[in-house]
């Protein structure tokens, strides 16, 4: 096990942000925490990377206890935070070099390793450029590269693509997925984007400090039902009759549309179409609807996932930058 968490909790005054959670992440697994803002995702991440002491329970990361062996935990994890933590006044290479210094990477391998991680995220040709000239996606990729420099066993990504446009998000993910394939790293991530959660081997859905469900994306979706195939035909009554005979149970109608539920929507649809066509019923229109993680989330928490709101600090920072008051 790479990460073992037992009854982990954290309170801030009277507010219990994390209410005794348990989970395990296996070696080489990509594990995602899915939940709205304020669910306890960031608090959990902060405890795992030893920035916050747990109020109760315990967490073992890469074999080290987050409370008693924080130095070893830190050395064994790479972290990419939600907000950028690069220095824009330094070049990409300098940012990486300083990281090597504070992580005590052996001197003789630094140069080679910097080159290696830059290649890995496709920024090799920009290494001499100031980070402030980078786009949001490039900065993110550079942070991923930096997180890998000291050869961590686990990579922790806190909302790795928040604030990026959809195209850039996809490209960042492309790199992360290749990286996973190439290195076999364990990845622990948080997100509130449902489509990103799909990349995970397993997902923990967290809401108001508790894990409300934990399974593979497919299993979670199965929880709330099966795929639904909807077919519109020329003769709806005969279609229902035929379909019911073929299925062995009565098919149902929904606004003149034949609806059939089943495990594998696409192949079920194909079979139904063939069957109806053979019975001389013209199929006009077919749709297959698979349950989404959105549905799962809605089902489990009774809430649609809320969009991330901009924190007060970021807004202040943006305002000051806008007025040109901030000179660094």
């Amino acid at each position, binding site marked *: 096990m790479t990460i073992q968490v037992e009854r982990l909790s954290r309170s801030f005054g009277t507010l219990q942000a994390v209410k005794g959670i348990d989970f395990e992440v296996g070696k080489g697994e990509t594990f995602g925490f899915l939940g709205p803002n304020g669910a306890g995702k960031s608090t959990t991440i*902060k405890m795992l*990377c*030893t*920035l*916050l*002491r747990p109020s109760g329970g315990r967490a073992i990361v*890469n074999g080290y206890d987050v409370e008693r062996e924080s*130095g*070893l935990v*830190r*050395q*064994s994890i790479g*972290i990419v*935070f939600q*907000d*950028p*933590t*690069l*220095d*824009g*006044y*330094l070049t990409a290479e*300098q940012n990486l070099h*300083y*990281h090597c*210094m*504070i*992580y*005590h990477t052996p001197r003789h391998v630094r140069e080679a*390793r910097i080159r*290696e*991680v830059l*290649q*890995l995220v*496709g920024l090799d040709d920009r290494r001499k450029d100031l980070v402030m000239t980078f786009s949001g996606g490039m900065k993110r990729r550079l942070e991923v590269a*930096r997180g*890998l420099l000291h*050869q*961590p*066993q686990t990579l922790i990504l806190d909302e790795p693509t928040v604030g990026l446009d959809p195209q850039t998000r996809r490209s960042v993910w492309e790199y992360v997925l*290749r*990286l996973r394939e*190439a*290195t*076999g*790293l364990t990845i622990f991530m948080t997100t509130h984007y449902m489509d990103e959660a799909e990349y995970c081997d397993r997902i923990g859905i967290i809401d108001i400090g508790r894990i409300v469900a934990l399974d593979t994306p497919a299993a979670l979706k199965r929880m709330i039902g099966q795929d639904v195939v909807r077919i519109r035909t020329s003769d709806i009554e005969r279609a229902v009759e035929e379909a019911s005979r073929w299925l062995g149970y009565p098919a149902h109608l929904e606004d003149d549309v034949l609806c059939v539920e089943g495990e594998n929507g696409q192949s079920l649809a194909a079979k139904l179409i063939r069957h109806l066509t053979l019975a001389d019923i013209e199929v006009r229109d077919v749709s297959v609807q698979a349950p989404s993680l959105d549905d799962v989330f809605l089902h489990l928490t009774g809430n649609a996932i809320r969009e991330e709101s901009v924190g007060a*600090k970021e807004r*202040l*920072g943006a305002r*000051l930058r806008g007025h040109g*008051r*901030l*000179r*660094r």
Partner: protein
Amino acid sequence: MLETQPSIVPVRALPKTRPARLIDVEGIAMIWLRDMTRFWRQRSRLLGGIVRALVWLFALGFGLRRSIVPISGLSYEQFVFPGIIAMTIIFTALQSAISIIWDREFGFLKEVLVAPTPRSTLILGKCLGGATCSTILAAIMLVFAPIASVALTPLNVLEVLIAMFITALALTALGIVIAARMTDFEGFGTLQNFITLPLYLFSGAVFPIRGAPSWLQVVLLVNPLTYGVNAIRGALLGYGAAEIPLDLAVLVVFTLIMLSIAILITRREA
């Protein structure tokens, strides 16, 4: 895109025990180097510091020269020149220390806070970085010594460099304590008005301590910059030179106290 298959396979067993470090020299070097790199990259700010100091030198030194009787045989521009040097130090030192707030707002601090390094690394690195920047700027100001009829010899330059660096350490350390507890930018403007300027003006930089009313003498005695001004002036002009060891000792003790406070109040979380 991926051209090469990376060899960073992160399966490497870490030593189970690692000696706990109290002082992480390489980590401190990293913070210091970063400050130096940024200092160099923003060297236009250097110019601002020099111009500000020259404005004060000309306005006070030459503006008041005829109106003020010589102080212990020193003309006013000679007397005030070390004060201007001290001003350069306090402005630069506090500004450097305050950059911690910027680092916090813009995230870089987090990179340091999650690194496997003790809390002292950030504080000590920042203190050395701010002190080095201040000393460099103050050393550049020495070039203008002849304008104020202050003679430079290799010995007094060496002496004054040491005095400047120790003064800079003390003021950066003070600035770090202030910055460690400041959370927003609003406080930054007030810092100049409520801390930097009073510390500068009530330090003996622009008037001699002797002859000041006794309540003011108390203020001067608790102001760390007073000791810095004294030491720099002693080294440059021989005025109060006998007190230099005491001045430097006070500054060193003050620095150590400030650094300890800063390390104690820095929280683990960002």
